């Protein structure tokens, strides 16, 4: 029976070579800005469900390209912060930021880091890699402070998107109901 306690020299050499390669190869073969493939994810926000093709391999936070932030929440990353219409929430964009990371041409945004920063509730199913985010509290201030109707887009029966603010200039009675 072969013992593996003292592996033959070639095995030891292969192990050492692999360990060395693991340290060296990514820096050598991958261009700056590229990351090892990380699993895809899904994010939910209001009525939106967004499939995220690229994330960073981070065990705690959900990093997405800045375009995904906009697709999911409407917020746009600008020099002054994460902005939705008139509202701009300052975020640290310097080195060491927990929300914004720049690598080469790409700008990554931590949806979960931002959520913690602005007091936004979220929950994740890590096995299925689905994150569900509650509304951003600051984005509700025109509603809770001034009673402006929060805008939304929902499909009609034919699937055509209808936006509440399309009816601006008319009186609207918005009625919720259910079949149950």
């Amino acid at each position: 029976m072969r013992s593996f306690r003292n592996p033959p020299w070639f095995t030891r050499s292969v192990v050492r070579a692999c360990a060395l390669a693991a340290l060296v190869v990514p820096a050598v073969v991958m261009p700056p800005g590229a990351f090892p493939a990380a699993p895809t994810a899904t994010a939910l926000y209001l009525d939106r469900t967004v499939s995220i093709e690229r994330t960073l391999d981070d065990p705690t936070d959900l990093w997405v390209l800045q375009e995904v932030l906009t697709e999911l929440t409407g917020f746009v990353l600008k020099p002054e912060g994460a902005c939705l219409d008139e509202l701009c929430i300052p975020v640290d964009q310097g080195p060491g930021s927990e929300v914004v990371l720049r690598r080469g041409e790409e700008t990554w945004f931590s949806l979960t880091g931002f959520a913690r920063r602005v007091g936004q509730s979220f929950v994740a199913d890590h096995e299925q890699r689905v994150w569900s985010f509650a509304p951003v509290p600051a984005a509700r201030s025109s509603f809770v402070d001034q009673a402006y109707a929060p805008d939304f887009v929902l499909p009609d029966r034919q699937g055509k998107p209808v936006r509440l603010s399309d009816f601006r200039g008319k009186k609207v009675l918005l009625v919720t109901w259910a079949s149950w």
Partner: protein
Amino acid sequence: MHEELKGRNFELVAVAQDTGGEAAAGPFYDAAKATFTALVDPRHTVSALFHLVNVPSAVMIDEEGRIVRLDEGTYTRTYSAGNLTYGTDAYVPALRDWVEKGSTSSVAKDPDEVAAALPRRSREQDLADAHFRLGVYFQLAGDEGRATRHWEEAQRLHPESWNYHRQDWSFTPEQAGPNWLRKVQAQGDKPYYAPMDLPEAPADEPPR
């Protein structure tokens, strides 16, 4: 009602809070011969955005997009089922009055007053919303185990939301009635729908 009012710069926008979407809500829209704007909202987005916890609820929104009333239990008349009565005959005349007179109607509140009276959302209630939508995601994906787990968590975190309970119960119709009755009885004196505080006689002349 919509036919009567739609020529007066008015739109009725109905939103079905149904995870089943068009398949669940469509037959009701057909039966109502809907000529109004009929939307489907499987993730209960409108309830989350407007802090609504039950259906039917109704929001009167003026021409500038500001809310002048937000009410629960907005049926078109009074209904009774057994010894339970619900709804009111006062809502439709109130709506007519507002459509006709706008901000001078005694039905319309000052939006600042509406804002001050809006229920605030706690972190737990927001988290409940996130769990509820995760449950809808899994339900649509056919993963009932996960859907149930997240819906139960939503109900635990935000027990005042009838929408979460009633949507969940709708998947076990034979238990929905008893579940509902038990929870209503557990409320004691607390009303099922928040009282509507409509003006006594909103229309000082009969509707035309």
